[in-house]
């Protein structure tokens, strides 16, 4: 039996977190409960963030969007702001788990789990997402790319929680592409994924490119080289093959029960070819 705290506001949360030893924060529990069952983690007590209004929802702020850490994937998928301004994230969310998992799981949980296979991470990297970390006495921001320090590792301090993530979408991108390879067509952990944002001019020239790969390295992989290879070019097979070759060099995948490193490396490049099908919006 574990003690579980259910704070209804931030003040109650801070009080709960002052206990010794500090209870472990969680939200949907869709990652944490799996680890509790397997014995991989065994905190004395838990504190649930899902009932704290300050940590939920989506709002426009500073020209971008602020997304509360405790917002569920299902709620994000339904959110008109997310759908209109973050189609890349919405596409990734629609491949995450299954309806029940999306009803429970949260974006904050996905970020804090910091799995290389976390499906919200490649889009958030491509979008240059920024995390907001809070404790009773402090609030700080940092780029997501710095927050995630390794597989399952973050820069979160013991007294902190993730309060939200801030994304400032650049409306000039006109190709928003996300693709995930899983063993089955839904409810599948990512074997490799690609999030891509492109700005393609009316004459077909690629003016800007942001690329991020999931599940092919200890954390999300970005490759300036692959992005560079696209700039000033067109979405032709040769151009994409060239970028694909660079992507294969940039990734550092592992073998696991789902796929070999060699397969992951190969498809990391292949996934770029799908961009050929894209006509700018």
């Amino acid at each position, binding site marked *: 039996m574990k003690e579980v705290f259910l704070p209804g506001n931030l003040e109650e949360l801070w009080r709960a977190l002052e206990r010794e030893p500090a209870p472990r924060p969680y939200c949907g529990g869709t990652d944490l409960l799996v680890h509790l069952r397997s014995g991989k983690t065994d905190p004395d007590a838990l504190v649930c963030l899902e009932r704290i209004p300050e940590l939920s929802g989506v709002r426009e702020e500073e020209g971008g969007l602020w997304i509360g850490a405790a917002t569920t994937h299902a709620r994000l998928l339904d959110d008109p702001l997310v759908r209109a301004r973050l189609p890349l994230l919405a596409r990734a969310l629609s491949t995450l788990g299954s309806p029940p998992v999306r009803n429970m799981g949260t974006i904050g949980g996905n970020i804090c789990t910091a799995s290389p296979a976390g499906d919200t991470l490649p889009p958030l990297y491509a979008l240059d997402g920024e995390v907001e970390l809070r404790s009773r006495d402090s609030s700080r921001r940092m780029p997501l790319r710095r927050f995630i320090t390794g597989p399952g590792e973050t820069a979160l301090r013991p007294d902190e929680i993730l309060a939200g993530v801030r994304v400032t979408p650049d409306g000039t991108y006109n190709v928003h592409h996300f693709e995930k390879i899983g*063993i089955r*067509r839904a409810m599948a952990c990512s074997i490799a994924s690609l999030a891509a944002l492109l700005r393609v001019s009316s004459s077909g020239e690629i003016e800007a490119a942001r690329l991020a790969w999931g599940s092919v390295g200890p954390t999300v992989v970005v490759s300036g080289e692959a992005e560079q290879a696209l700039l000033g070019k067109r979405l032709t097979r040769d151009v994409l*093959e060239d970028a694909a*070759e660079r992507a294969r060099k940039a990734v550092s995948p592992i073998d696991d029960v789902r796929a070999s490193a060699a397969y992951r490396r190969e*498809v990391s490049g*292949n996934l770029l*070819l799908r961009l050929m099908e894209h006509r700018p919006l």
Partner: protein
Amino acid sequence: MKPSVPEIGRSLRRADGPSKVTGREKYAADHYGEGLLWAGVRRAGVPHGRILSVDTAEAAALPGVVAVLTGGDVPGTNRQGIVHKDQPVLCREKVRHFGDAVALVIAGDRETLAKAISLVRVRMEPLPGVFGVDDALAPGAPLVHEEWSGGNVLLRATIRNGEAEKALEACPVIVEETFEVPPQAHAFLETENGVAWQEEDGTVVLVVSTQAPFRDKWEVSHALGLPWDGIRVVGPVLGGGFGGKDGATVQCLLALAALHAGGRRVKMWWDREENFLAGYKRHGARLHYRLGAREDGTLHALHCRLFYDTGAYAHLGGEVMALGMEHAGGPYRIPHTLIEGWCVYTNHPVAGAMRGFGVAQVSFAAERMMDLLAGKLGMDPLELRKRNALRQGDRNCAGVTLTASTGILECLERIGGHPLWTGRETWKGQAGPFKKRGVGLAAVWNAMGYGRGLPDSALAKIELTPEGRLRLYSGVSDMGQGNATAFVQIAGHILSQEDETIELIQPDTARTLPSGSSAAGRTTYTYGNALIPACEELRRRIVGRAALMLLVDTLDDLELLPGRVRHPASGREVPLSVLAATMTEHERICISQFLMPVVREVPGTGKEFRIGFPHLFFAHAAHLARIEVDELTGTIEVKDWLAATEAGRVLNPQGFEQQVQGAVAQGIGYGTLEEVKLREGRILTPDFAAYILPGSLDVPEIISLVEEVEEPTGPYGMKGVGEVGANGPLPAIANALADGCGISMTRAPLTAERVLEALRRKGTPGAGETS
């Protein structure tokens, strides 16, 4: 659907439908009891090892622990197994696979149980392991069972007809290939479980999720040395079985626990991880084929060498291989066959029965060979199959002359006339960028019944209760396949009673009669055939009694109706409640036995098979798969499915279609996703996060066409349909891959990674050239 008097050939509401959807139906897992104790097993944790000591002191000292038992505490032979008694209830000297049972713990609650299991100290000397067919057959290989005379070979057998080797040499066209299939998990929802207790008179009662309650009695009695008549097994409906609950899972362990529980109820319920670790699997196999034909496509000779990995214990390994060998040539005429089989022991999880019992494996090879041959001959694959399809009167690849209904040709013709086949070239031409489309066929068959050597018998029992209602005693488990519904349909039809009013008693060795296992596509055929005469006799008795009561002197003038018998001429009626009250128990209960017919002219080959060879009846099916392959990822999307199935006449169209659909879905899993991955005996796919089953998006709309060919010996002309559909998907998808992408896959499942690798080797543009 409203309550009605069932008709044969018309869909009937499932007898278990309302009780299951409302949660009233009690599975074994729903049985608890006051003062319940929990039992659990300490597993080996190594694939092969000699037990030096098992120290139970610490575990036994834990408060709340009732008993900790080891091999030395097992009375009786401590051996279980359906044909070969080679599997200890609790290992004494050595362990042979990761999930072998070393100690049994009984405790007051689940937390204490888990703790106590972890406190059992096992000292083990690791032994070199046997991890696959090659290891098992290598000279000087370590022995899995030192005492077994065959070394690591459980069964070596040969089916020989004609002169295959010579005939192959004379064939103008020969194709040759080696295939591999992995173990598959049954993945039923309700994991292995049961509750047991000992009554005051010493009787041990088990309520268990089982496909073979009557055989369980023998198993427990033999393994624990208990008197056979001192054991009662109750087998409620199962939350899935697929073969994985045919054979002892928790039975002997639970009965042993009951002997140490002082009359309290003891429950054992494997979690999913334990189900993967200790439960049975479909046999992994390697299949080497050489097939020769004449220039016109007439099959002439087949030589195959089949290797089945049965894991640590025999279970039904020999019988599974026997059935695979019997079907190795596919549903075709092949005059010369040499089919060699090796079933070997390894330090892998125990392989046993699973839907498509040995046949799902060879169907992959046989049907790929047909397409390879068609390619070499430049023939249409459907034409090649039709040309060689077995007809009644032909001899099959096992040398048995087919005297029963044989409808494979009709199934192939149905596929050939369907727009999914005739319109395939247009459809293939419409593939989008980076997509390739292919269409594949498979013709498959599956025997029904136990085969020669093991009487396939059922004893049906039907009662008119003193209150005037029907009570049907089913002796053969319903694991969801719907046989109990078929029994209600038959009884209601013959006795003119509405389905809802018929009470169904599930198997219970104290109340129902031995009717064999729920297996081999036999349940409705065998039990149904026993039930018909029992119901007809009861009908005569009811009408006869009504005649006495209504003073009518010929039975023809009476009509049996729901709840009553009527004399139409006079309008007089007698309610069954009144009528039944006048009858003695002897009059109200009818029992009848049926024994499945067997092959009369047994071929002079396959002599090594003690039981289970050959078979007389087969169900047939032709499948068509339309798939789309992504050239960038290797992913297969199954787009359309067509299954034409012949299993005699259809009793219940809805039940028939459900069997086809389920089998295809399970087969798509086997074909594209599912693989119990092993490294040195350890399961790398220990749960549903790693062992991937198909979901609703992986299974397309399935069109089921029914080809009815009456089987005169069947109840209302039917044969079993449960298994045949599972054999089609893997080969049909592999053939579609070859059609669409020109790649010939030899290893299942056909994962995206394997497909992409094959595409790359073939140099298909689109797939990256480097890696």
